[in-house]
């Protein structure tokens, strides 16, 4: 009895600590402490579980903890910040797979005597777990570039997926009423694994972040379902929190890109691309050389740096910081304008710049900075494109019309660092590049910045 209470209390405490942990994330100051609380909560839950009376032997548990800990630690230690999205995707796959396995094992042990509700929970857990596993793996492969990032489609795909889904659901329902029947259960799992692949394959690498947060929330729901299976409330709490955060994040992303989730998942984007391409060039881009830029910057009063996905791909965060430093030493005010969906995952730019020791007090959000551009001498756009596309504001026809943007075109002058004529994630042409205020500094962001720094020193 005492043991029962002890275990339950560790769980309750863990649940509370998780909540406190996430509350901590409402501010960078409290975030670290919050995470430590959450970690402590996880530790408590584990310790409590180890006392569970069903446990007869510990060797497999210890082994699993050691192996897992080692691998997880290694992954966390060595992945570069720029590989965050991939890592998260992979991590999801593991978590979801674990949930699925628990469900399967539960079924193996008391398959026959399971009644309606519990069988439903197991099915839900296993199905979500399975499709999240494969889905996340595909996402990982795409982000890591192991497979083609572009949407992969084939004729009759939708029909196929629909039948697949239908079949899975049918088996789901069937097993509900015949928990004893093993074959259909395992068949359902197989289909779920397949469905996960089919679900993510047709989605472009750039949309992965949205998909991933969705998968994140599935993983959470799978954990919550596990909680119903094992009648364990901490699983329910943690799973639900997770499910919601994933869901909310994907909503936020879609809103900021102003697209609907369905539009992301069943990518109507392809078509748009063509129209955009059709739209073609609008006039000349004015190229500009490093020296001129350097002079502009060196003698500016205020410079606003607008980082985008290009900053991430070229790993230029540290160089940017150096440039900012050397400018600030000359008394120039340097601010960073961070668009909510700059880069490829929520808060992408914030993390990169934080890595380069840029204090978050000099990062400005959309609302804070937009009114400052008119009084800004130079806006330096580094590998950003869609988030500074004036069409979103001016051209109601544009597919990204209404998406909030950083209005760099209002600055006294704009310098755009990019490699060439490459389109952004949306595949749209960007009128900003053709405006008279805009000068293009071609080349990889990192290199261009390196040359800029030297030039600034000379200036």
């Amino acid at each position, binding site marked *: 009895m005492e043991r029962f209470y002890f275990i339950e209390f560790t769980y309750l405490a863990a649940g509370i600590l998780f*909540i406190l942990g*996430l*509350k901590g*994330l*409402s501010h960078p100051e409290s*975030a*670290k402490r919050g*995470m430590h609380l*959450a970690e402590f909560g996880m530790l408590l*839950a*584990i310790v409590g*579980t180890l006392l569970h009376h*069903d*446990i*007869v*032997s510990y060797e*497999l*548990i210890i082994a*699993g903890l050691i*192996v897992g800990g080692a*691998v*997880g*630690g290694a*992954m*966390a230690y060595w*992945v570069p*910040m720029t590989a*965050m999205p991939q890592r*998260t995707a992979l*991590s*999801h796959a*593991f978590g979801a797979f*674990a949930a699925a*396995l*628990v469900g399967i*094992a*539960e079924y*193996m*042990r008391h398959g026959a005597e399971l009644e309606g509700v519990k069988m439903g929970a197991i099915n839900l857990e296993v199905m979500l777990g399975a499709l999240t596993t494969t889905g996340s793996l595909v996402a990982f492969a795409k982000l890591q570039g192991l497979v083609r990032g572009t949407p992969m489609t084939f004729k009759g795909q939708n029909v196929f997926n629909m039948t697949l889904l239908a079949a899975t659901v049918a088996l789901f329902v069937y097993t509900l009423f015949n928990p004893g029947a093993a074959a259909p259960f395992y068949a359902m799992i197989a289909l779920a694994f397949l469905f996960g692949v089919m679900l993510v394959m047709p989605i472009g690498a750039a949309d992965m972040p949205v998909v991933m947060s969705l998968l*994140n929330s599935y*993983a*959470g729901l799978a954990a919550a379902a*596990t909680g119903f*299976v094992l009648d*364990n409330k*901490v*699983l329910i*709490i*943690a799973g*639900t*929190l997770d499910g919601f*955060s994933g869901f909310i*994040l994907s909503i936020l992303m879609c809103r900021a890109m102003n697209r609907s989730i369905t539009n992301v998942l069943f990518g109507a984007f392809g078509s748009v691309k063509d129209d955009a391409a059709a739209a073609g060039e609008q006039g000349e881009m004015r190229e500009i050389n490093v020296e001129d830029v350097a002079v502009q910057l060196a003698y500016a009063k205020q410079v606003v740096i607008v980082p985008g996905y290009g900053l991430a791909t070229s790993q230029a965060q540290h160089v940017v910081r150096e440039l900012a430093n050397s400018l600030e*030493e000359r*008394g120039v005010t340097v601010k960073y304008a961070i668009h909510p969906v700059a880069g490829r995952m929520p*808060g992408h730019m*914030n*993390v990169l710049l*934080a890595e380069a*020791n840029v204090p978050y007090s000099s990062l400005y959000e959309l609302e804070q900075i937009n009114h400052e551009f008119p009084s800004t001498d130079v806006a330096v756009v580094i590998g950003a494109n869609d988030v500074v596309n004036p069409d979103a504001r001016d051209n109601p026809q544009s597919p990204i019309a209404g998406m909030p943007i950083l209005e760099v075109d209002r600055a006294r002058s704009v310098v755009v660092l990019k490699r060439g004529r490459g389109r952004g994630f949306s595949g749209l042409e960007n009128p900003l590049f053709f405006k008279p205020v805009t000068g293009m500094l071609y080349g990889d962001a990192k290199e261009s910045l390196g040359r800029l720094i030297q030039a600034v020193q000379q200036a």
Partner: protein
Amino acid sequence: MKPESLIAALYVFALAAFLGYQVISRVPPLLHTPLMSATNAISGISLVGSIVIAGSLGHDQMKVLGYPLSTVLGFVAVTCATINVVGGFMITDRMLRMFKRKELPAAKGDGKKALKG
């Protein structure tokens, strides 16, 4: 699953859902990436379930290296979940450690003043 426990579970689910919404919607964009990896780590809570299964002996016939299959699955589950938990939390800490409010006491600040003064 006893009806009472089902109901109780539903209550917990409903309340947690509300709470999740309230709490998450207060996280600023600045911290969205850490949020992702943090929740990811927390979802590794299925570790709790895995441990019990890996530690207890299922009475299922099929054996793998002398262990009942279900137990072995439990072992795999423990491994995967642990990867998720450890990896997730470590990376989150690593990220958060990078967020700084003020400058490090770098030469920068002084240099600036020096030039200004």
